[in-house]
């Protein structure tokens, strides 16, 4: 009798345990999709190396400590509390996957815009380029936000670079506000954020021990629409 109770309890627990699936798909980003198309066509990079489809991967650590890894498009790990992951290949054309991935928001867009020499604001022609770009980036996008991040080169002191980049970002934000006021961009001011990028981007290109040099390329404002 006791054995029956234990068996029934075990079955009940198994029934309650959720079944889970993780399915790796082809990249959803346009630039990665382009690389995958080139890879499948057998294209090579300018240095002669083969172009690889950047599928990435997911490492699955099961509650029992076992680890599985999926790294190819259409690979699926299938598991539950009582069973560790089994990996198999599935059809990417599955309507559920198409539907779920089709519901992803529009991919964010990023553009670089440059300050006028010796100024912390965009010259009129660069501001016009930004206006045109923003109209394109905002088209069809719901719940949009505009991030304006100004950068500096890697010279000087971090605190000063923070202050300088924030000042530049706010200056460009105010220019964008003016364009919004003039009806040139279909956005609300509350959806525009200015961010101090400081010197971090410039420093990410430096080798260990390298001395920072003035570099005009980082006098840039990176605008992201998401």
């Amino acid at each position: 009798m006791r054995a029956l109770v234990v068996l029934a309890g075990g079955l009940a627990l198994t029934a309650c345990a959720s079944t889970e699936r993780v399915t790796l798909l082809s990249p959803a980003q346009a630039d990665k999709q382009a690389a995958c198309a080139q890879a499948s066509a057998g294209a090579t990079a300018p240095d002669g190396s083969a172009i690889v489809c950047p599928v990435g991967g997911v490492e699955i650590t099961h509650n029992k400590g076992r680890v599985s890894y999926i790294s190819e498009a259409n690979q699926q790990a299938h598991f539950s509390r009582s069973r560790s992951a089994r990996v198999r290949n599935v059809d990417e054309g599955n309507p559920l996957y198409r539907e779920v991935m089709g519901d992803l928001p529009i991919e964010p867009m990023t553009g670089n815009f440059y300050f006028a020499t010796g100024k912390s604001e965009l010259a009129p022609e660069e501001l016009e380029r930004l206006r045109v770009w923003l109209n394109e980036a905002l088209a069809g996008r719901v719940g949009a936000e505009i991030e304006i991040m100004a950068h500096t080169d890697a010279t000087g002191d971090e605190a000063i670079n923070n202050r300088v980049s924030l000042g530049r970002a706010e200056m460009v934000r105010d220019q964008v506000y003016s364009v919004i006021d003039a009806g040139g961009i279909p956005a609300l001011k509350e959806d525009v954020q200015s961010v101090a990028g400081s010197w971090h981007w410039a420093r990410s290109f430096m080798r260990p021990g390298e001395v920072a040099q003035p570099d005009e390329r980082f006098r840039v404002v990176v605008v992201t629409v998401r």
Partner: protein
Amino acid sequence: MRKFIVVLAAVGGLLLQPATAQNAQRPDIGRIKNVTAGGVDVQRRGNTQRAQSGYPLKEGDIVVTGPGQRVGITFVDNTRISIAPSSRVIISTYLFDRSRREGNANIRIERGAMGVDSGSLARSGNLRFETPNSTLGVRGTSFVIEVDE
């Protein structure tokens, strides 16, 4: 009695103020973008709000979709997720330093299905997802998680 009510209201106001102020101080971590008509429920600190396109999300928010409801979210590191009908997703942790492009995030799906296209956080391996039975570490990729009850 009137004095008592005034004092009670003042104390109540003081007690409520920190939570409101804390919410305002906590940075936005992403926004709801495309969403089915009528919106979806977002639970924040015990309160449920009906969220529409443009709704700013905070760390700790719980997004719940009912039958027929769907939602797409873009986070500040450009990670995008879509949540299928009848799902419950908890954004447990989402820390992202925009200027350094680093941080870490942990999103838990308790039931339903979710599509993911990872952004900047995945490059450092610091974008993680949890299900009832596993933890997923992500490296720059697109995938779907399904949790059947």
